């Protein structure tokens, strides 16, 4: 799941503060955030809590991640979701549904659909930090205090016309180089989604956000929280994890 959060472009970690922040350019701030996100592998156990109006649905899942290109997710609960698995390799997402015993391959505009009923889209999960830096122009708007931390405020503008999020605004924590809040806008300037980091834990050699909340502003009274219950970095992932065969394994 750390990969999930990673792809969300939101979460960044830094081990050191490196040089003093005052004279950093926007590109450098973003690069520092991204550089510090890199790790070889990770395994995590996550609770996803979807709240729509008065209804609350809780889902449990596990995730394996390798680099920025590969991840494998399996849903454990509730009953109707159990056994649903997702394999991401590069820009392609494959989902296995146990009820149909079939794999669906998602790409292109279909990735904009809601992921498993949550406020995240599949696209939110598959986009990587490198793509972000390639496809957007970034500029530093200034500094602001967010959640009691001094932050850089970055604005990203898409170089491509038909990007789902044409503008992205990121608040990057000056201390830890974590994007603690992200706002996603359409080209019209309409606010589409807001992501906020609500909890950051310190691990052996890094900080990592362990609770993030996404709000899809197009859905009324809706939010999705992702809580990382357990995360292990740089573990040995079993051979064959990122294969279609693993996806279809009963």
């Amino acid at each position, binding site marked *: 799941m750390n990969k999930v959060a990673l792809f969300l472009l939101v979460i960044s970690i830094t081990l050191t503060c490196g040089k003093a922040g005052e004279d950093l350019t926007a590109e450098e701030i973003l690069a520092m955030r991204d550089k510090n996100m890199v790790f070889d592998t990770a395994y995590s156990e996550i609770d996803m809590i*979807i709240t*729509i109006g008065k*209804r609350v*649905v809780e889902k449990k899942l596990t995730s394996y991640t390798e680099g920025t290109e590969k991840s494998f997710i399996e849903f454990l609960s*509730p*009953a*109707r*979701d159990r056994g*649903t698995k997702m394999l991401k390799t590069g820009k392609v997402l494959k*989902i296995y*549904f146990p*009820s*149909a*015993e*079939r794999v*669906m*391959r*998602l790409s292109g505009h*279909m990735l904009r*659909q*809601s992921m*498993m*009923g*949550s406020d995240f889209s599949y696209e939110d999960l598959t986009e990587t930090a490198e793509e972000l830096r390639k496809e957007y122009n970034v500029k530093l708007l200034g500094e602001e205090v967010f959640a009691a931390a001094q932050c850089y405020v970055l604005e990203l503008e898409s170089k491509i016309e038909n990007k789902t999020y044409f503008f992205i605004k990121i608040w990057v924590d000056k201390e830890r180089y974590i994007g603690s809040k992200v706002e996603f806008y359409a080209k019209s300037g309409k606010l589409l989604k807001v992501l906020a980091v609500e909890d950051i834990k310190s691990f052996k050699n890094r900080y990592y956000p362990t609770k993030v909340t996404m709000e899809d502003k197009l859905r009324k009274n809706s939010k999705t929280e992702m809580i990382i219950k357990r995360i292990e970095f740089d573990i040995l992932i079993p051979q064959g994890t990122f294969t279609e065969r693993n996806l279809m394994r009963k």
Partner: protein
Amino acid sequence: MKKFIKLAWRNIWRNWRRTILTSLAVAFGMISIIFTYSYIEGVSESIYRTLIETELGHVKIVSREFLRLERVMPREQLVYNAQSIEDGISSLPGISTMTERIKFRLILSSEDENEPALGIGINPEQEKNLFDLRKYLIQGSYFQESPAEILIGDGLAKKLGVGLGDELLAVTSDINYSTYALTFTVTGIFKSGFTFMDKNFIYLSIEKAQEMLDCDGAAHEILLLLDDAGTAADISSEILTFLKESGLDDTLTAVPWQDNFFLTYMPLASVVMGSILLIIMLIAALVILNTMLMAVVERTHEIGVIKSMGMRNGGIVALILVEATYIGLLGVFIGGLIGSGLSILAQNTGLNFTRMMEKMEFEIAFFSPIIYPKFTFGILLGAAVFCLTTTLFAAIYPARKASRMEPVEALRTSMK
């Protein structure tokens, strides 16, 4: 007036080309009005029928929330005890069919493509009394016994690259926000002519829809077909009373088809078209005004003579108005004949807009690409009255101008 009938009739033929031309202007107005209103009548009838068949029934029993958020289609807003409700209201007179539907968004996945679609879960036996999909099937057959059958619009089938017998994976989010998938076999492809429907709709059995949404025995809508569509409002209120008294479900409501917001816009269309026609008639009126004015000016001397014989001003006005009436009647006759003929012709052959609609970027949900105008005698009569009135109004100014000529001045004006 009687006095001038002969004189007026002969007067209009003094310059027969002008008279014919003027009456053709009236005729043109006549044709436009008749055709336009026949067209509007045809369109609205088609829209009403389609809406009733595909969306509204004559009466729809549905949760208030589902109705309010119709475009979002909140899948959890269900009619849970559909069977008890149907049993309860089956004693009401005038209900000919009751059928349940489930409507939900889903993703369809073929070997190569994924497409979002609108799934309609139906009870095939009852459904065909309301909306008979069989008449639109271009391939395959209507539901037989096998549960995993799916009927798909031809546009959607094309997008997905599937044909008869192919498998489709359908994925949706159920009422508890779990993601659920089933595989279906395409057993029929329909082409209704409604572009939106053909590009987005699939039909499946209500049992399979319930399985996908995880809502056994429930439906989003119960649609009623009545013996007499006019009784929809009465039956709706009886159903409301029943729902209240039985205490089955107080989140539900019963809606007669006339309440649909789309239908309330239909009169607006008439108004818009009406204003265009008003412009056409204004032009016709200007032609008439011009013609009559020319006729009056040309006959200045003669009008002087008639006045010298003791005709009062009112008589002159009447004479000119009778002449205008002749021209108007002539135009109404010609235009009525051509306009009715054209409308009846179009009514029988239909106007095909398929090509135009295919090029359109947006899709109008219930606008059939083949329009059959509907001609009525009411339209003919209305057009005739309107055109004659316009003609008379246009002739008032020339008539008054003629009547106000001083006879001495008029006589002094030399003859041509």
